[in-house]
């Protein structure tokens, strides 16, 4: 047992910090720290800057062009990049389908698709949820029927994050309608430019466009783009969800937003002094700092104990991470106070003149608060996670 950072770990943190300070473009940093909307190019530029450094795939083994970092290094990297104001890494390729292909994909798929994920030469999206299949994912109805060397896919996917930019979708489809729910599912890699694919935006509470509906009508997918074996897709899907859950503890996000919160509270004046010095507000900030410290230590325990391989304890991280991200957004809105009432979506687009009242950050506070309600819903709701804990950890 060694509860302090080793000199190597400290040096690594310093190296990441220095890199982010030097290489993160100022316009991207400003957008992130002001809670303005990011565009496709912002993500792609940052991924390429990382790739130039050899850090394009922080969670991948060296043989696939990754860094080979252990779980602790990955966590340090995440936190330092977020604190610096970097965009989140797109998870769809690096954290989701990438690891699935490494484990279950064909040699041809690995060679063709993995290298293109690192510089976002292919933008991936996740075709899981359907209008009738949210938490109960295994009830999905999108059908794939074999026709010669192709599957013909029909159905509808939803909540497809950033599908408007996507080149490829990894998609769960039903290939055996007669098998029990989980048994007849396969995973296909679907070219988003195929005829029959239609992407429609879903506006969310914050006025943003991150998620989409994707309609699939007689879309032809070559059999070569089947992942692993037919009807084994549920196994691959579960493997992927495990990876997703640790990522969405959102520790880096929490650290960054805490910094923004304190900065806002230091600048907001209330009764003749900064709100940060008000004991009522100070206590609430202290408590959320404790929450983040506990989340971080829990993440470190999980990361260090089994090198980050997520088990059911990932559900604990998901629940807490979601709640803390929501609490931070709520506190930011409270600090913004009256200035969080007016809201013009144009304020969130970089380059547009800011013309709202009150401090600049207040403009985004209401939208941020509304948007963060998603964290306890996506990636398996808090209630689903509690069910997982009860079943798999407590054995009831």
């Amino acid at each position, binding site marked *: *047992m*060694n509860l302090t950072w080793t000199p190597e770990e400290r040096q690594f943190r310093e190296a990441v910090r220095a890199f982010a300070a030097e290489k993160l473009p100022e316009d991207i940093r400003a957008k992130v720290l002001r809670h303005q909307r990011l565009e496709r190019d912002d993500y792609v530029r940052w991924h390429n800057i990382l790739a130039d450094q050899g850090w394009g795939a922080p969670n991948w083994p060296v043989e696939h062009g990754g860094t080979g970092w252990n779980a602790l290094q990955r966590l340090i990297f995440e936190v330092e990049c977020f604190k610096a104001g970097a965009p989140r890494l797109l998870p769809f390729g690096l954290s989701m389908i990438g690891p699935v292909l490494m484990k279950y994909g064909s040699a041809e798929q690995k060679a063709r698709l993995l290298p293109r994920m690192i510089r976002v030469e292919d933008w991936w999206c996740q075709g899981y949820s359907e209008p009738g299949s949210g938490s109960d994912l295994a009830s999905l109805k999108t059908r794939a029927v074999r026709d010669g060397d192709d599957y013909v896919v029909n159905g509808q996917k939803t909540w497809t994050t950033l599908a408007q930019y996507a080149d490829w979708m990894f998609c769960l489809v039903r290939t055996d309608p007669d098998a029990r729910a989980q048994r007849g599912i396969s995973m296909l890699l679907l070219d988003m430019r195929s005829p029959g694919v239609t992407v429609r935006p879903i506006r969310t509470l914050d006025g943003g466009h991150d998620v989409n509906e994707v309609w699939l009508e007689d879309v032809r997918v070559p059999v070569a783009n089947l992942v692993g074996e037919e009807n084994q897709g549920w196994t691959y899907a579960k493997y992927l969800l495990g990876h997703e859950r640790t990522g969405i503890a959102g520790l880096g996000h929490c650290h960054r937003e805490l910094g923004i919160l304190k900065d806002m509270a230091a600048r907001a004046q209330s009764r003749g002094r900064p709100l940060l010095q008000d004991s009522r507000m100070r206590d609430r900030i202290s408590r959320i700092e404790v929450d983040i*410290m*506990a989340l971080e230590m829990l993440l470190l325990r999980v990361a*260090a104990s089994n090198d980050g391989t997520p088990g059911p304890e990932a559900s604990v991280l998901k*629940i807490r991470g979601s709640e803390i991200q929501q609490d931070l957004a709520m506190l930011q809105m409270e600090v913004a106070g009256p200035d969080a009432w007016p809201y013009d979506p144009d304020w969130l687009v970089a380059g547009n003149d800011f013309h709202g009242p009150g401090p600049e950050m207040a403009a985004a506070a209401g939208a941020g608060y509304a948007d963060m309600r998603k964290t306890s819903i996506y990636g398996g709701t808090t209630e689903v*996670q509690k069910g997982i804990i009860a079943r798999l950890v*407590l054995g009831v």
Partner: protein
Amino acid sequence: MDFIYTEEQRMLADSLRRLVDQAWTFPQRRARQAAGTLDRQAWNALAELGVLGLTISQDHGGFGEVPASLLPVHVELGRGLVSEPVIPSAVMGAALADGCGEAARGRWLPAIASGEAIVSVAWQEPGRRYAADPQDCRAAQTAEGWRLDGAKHLVWHGAAADAWFVSARGGDGQTVLLAVPADAAGVRVTDTPTLDGARCARLDFDAVTLSAEALLAEGEAADAALAQALQWGTAALCAHAAGAMDRLLEITVEYLKTRKQFGQPLATFQALQHRLAEMLVAKELALSMAYVAVAALTESDAAQRRRMIASAKLEAARAGRLVAQLAVQLHGGMGMTDELEVGDYFKRLTVVDQLMGDTAEQLAVLEELA
């Protein structure tokens, strides 16, 4: 960073779990509580296992384990709701003596490590909540040594102690730490049971005469030694609380699997499963913060050390209260009776907040450090 127990820590934790399972059963704990005096056999068993000399240096008869070793040990003691004065004597007393120079170390550490001497730190004064600077308890230097007047209260296992480490205000207003033997003339001891089945004492000192050797430390050194004792005690308490939560969750899961209503085990009801999951989340966070607390003991930045300890204590109190309340709730009416050990865990976890600085106190510390 590395969270895996060392081989020694693993073996000690395993042995301790076996000992606690065998000698700290619910009826045994209740019997000792009813007796109200220290069970020497139980105390010696802890000493023999090395619990009391855990972090005391080998030069002074201890095992010289790193401060982080407090975690595996006190998690086990908390699981077994061990109420013997391990924290007041072997953790706080030892940490205080360790900060008081070689004479104090030589005099006290070997005796604490062997269990021969039980000490308790008398630092709180009536009406002053958690103030660590002595005020009304006064020490005056005399020709022979020291004269002590005033009162201390909430002295953890004060009546079982062979000596108290008393903080008092010296003539120049500085803190004086004095080792007061329990048989000193002029001391009145008022022993009181506590909500969680332990004991505490009020000590009234009336012209107590002490030799010059009673002095442990004075001035800044005394303040630092006392602060160190409180930090070590808080860290051990955080681990103890995490252990108690761990065991209480097990007890509650077991009860819900067994107890049937509406023709099925309570554990099959989703609303109750979710409460169990919330208990587990709280327990994991509290355990994580117990790691933070023991890590603080080797943190060189004093402000950061205080911040870590205060944060861990806040979390232990918050999570402890939640887990305790949910455990009683999930046991239903049975949870309200004095017939199950659930109530004992509930009360121990409840008073975690009361000991060594409550929530308001820790928040004030964090505000001060902000």
